[in-house]
């Protein structure tokens, strides 16, 4: 699974196991790009959960996957800081450093960039951007010097975010960026895998996903 799912997955697995106590789910996080490269070489994974549709679609185009990629949720992004209270896209230019995850490789970074452009502030803040490897690294950056950053909303609900102490966040209007479609690709024909795949797309899973800040409207 892609890294942003780290927090929600345990709960989904828990719920899944309530229903199917005998199926053990191992879940591995890594970057989508790495996982894609590995799945191409027949990595022994059953289900691939990606932070966007691009990677599952790429794989599917290579003839991998049982069904076409499905969208199980949509990610949201928000402004985040531990220093500054009144967060808004407009205020961004008053800060000296803004951390986002890499637009090239992460969907959340890409969405962040889109919203800057849409808000018309990109030229002013261009030189203040710091690019993190993953959304989790954005938090490290904010903790260690960056004034503000953009992260996935789901992170706010992770239990570990409390490690950062006091923090402030502000949603970014979803109209500012293209939806971050979280795609899932079923890789193996194993029965257990299929069950989990179906569970993930079920209402129960969606409820949990919603609790963790994902947008689950219009499938």
């Amino acid at each position: 699974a892609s890294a942003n799912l780290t927090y929600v997955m345990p709960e989904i697995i828990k719920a899944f196991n309530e229903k199917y106590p005998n199926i053990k789910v191992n879940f591995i996080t890594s970057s989508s790009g790495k996982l894609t490269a590995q799945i191409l070489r027949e990595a022994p994974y059953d289900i691939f959960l990606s932070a966007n549709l691009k990677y599952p679609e790429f794989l599917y185009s290579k003839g991998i996957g049982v069904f076409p990629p499905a969208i199980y949720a949509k990610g949201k992004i928000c402004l985040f800081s531990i220093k500054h209270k009144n967060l808004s896209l407009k205020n961004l230019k008053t800060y000296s450093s803004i951390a986002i995850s890499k637009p090239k490789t992460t969907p959340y970074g890409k969405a962040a960039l889109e919203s800057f452009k849409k808000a018309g502030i990109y030229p002013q803040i261009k030189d203040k951007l710091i690019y993190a490897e993953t959304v989790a690294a954005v938090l490290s950056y904010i903790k260690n010097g960056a004034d503000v950053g953009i992260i996935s909303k789901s992170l706010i609900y992770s239990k570990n975010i409390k490690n950062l102490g006091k923090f402030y966040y502000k949603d970014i209007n979803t109209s500012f960026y293209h939806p971050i479609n979280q795609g899932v690709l079923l890789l193996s024909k194993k029965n257990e895998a299929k069950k989990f795949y179906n569970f993930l797309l079920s209402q129960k899973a969606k409820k949990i996903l919603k609790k963790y800040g994902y947008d689950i409207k219009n499938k």
Partner: protein
Amino acid sequence: MIDFTPFILSLKLAVIVTIILLIIGIPYAWYLSSTKSKIKPFLETITALPIVLPPSVLGFYLLVFLSPDSFIGGIFYKLFNIKLVFSFPGLVVASSIYSFPFMIQPIQSGFESLNKNIIEASFLSGKGKLTTLFKVILPNIKPALLTAIVITFAHTIGEFGVVLMVGGSIPGKTEVASVAIYDYVENLDYHSAHIYSAILLIISFLVLFIVYFINHRQRRKYDIY
């Protein structure tokens, strides 16, 4: 609860890789140190190159070359029925390739500064090449050998880019400690990351300290200071 499997995997990997590279590295470094051939600088450069690539990128290429569809991976798969990707043997192969220069270079430099006449003296004592190697040459390049072993060992423990790519962090099989710690940091679980890092550091500290301490005592004995 702390799961020690990743540490055991890490140690196992590091020990195996160090031993394999010692076995390959000694003759190869010897060849490099003693050849006068024109291709020597070429070979030396090639030897150093794996380190120049970012580990994940190297890992990516290794993934391509070691997968059962590829030529090399295919040979292994067909002949020994060993899959070199997403398996522990794969980690061993990949780590060995990445850590190769760390083993070769110090040993080669040790060989190059060895006083050749003790080798001759050993031959003239009627001893063959193997005895000479183990009883005379290696003991007398100990500082270099130690450097090679320590760097290779530590580096294999700490490496995770290649390992993650080729191994795929499968718990109990390819999820080594470095990968586990990385995951904790990614998950913002700093508490576990600290604990795991501390354990990794302590284990490594103990291993290295014992090695250095024994070496220190021996050097005193030989009065090499």
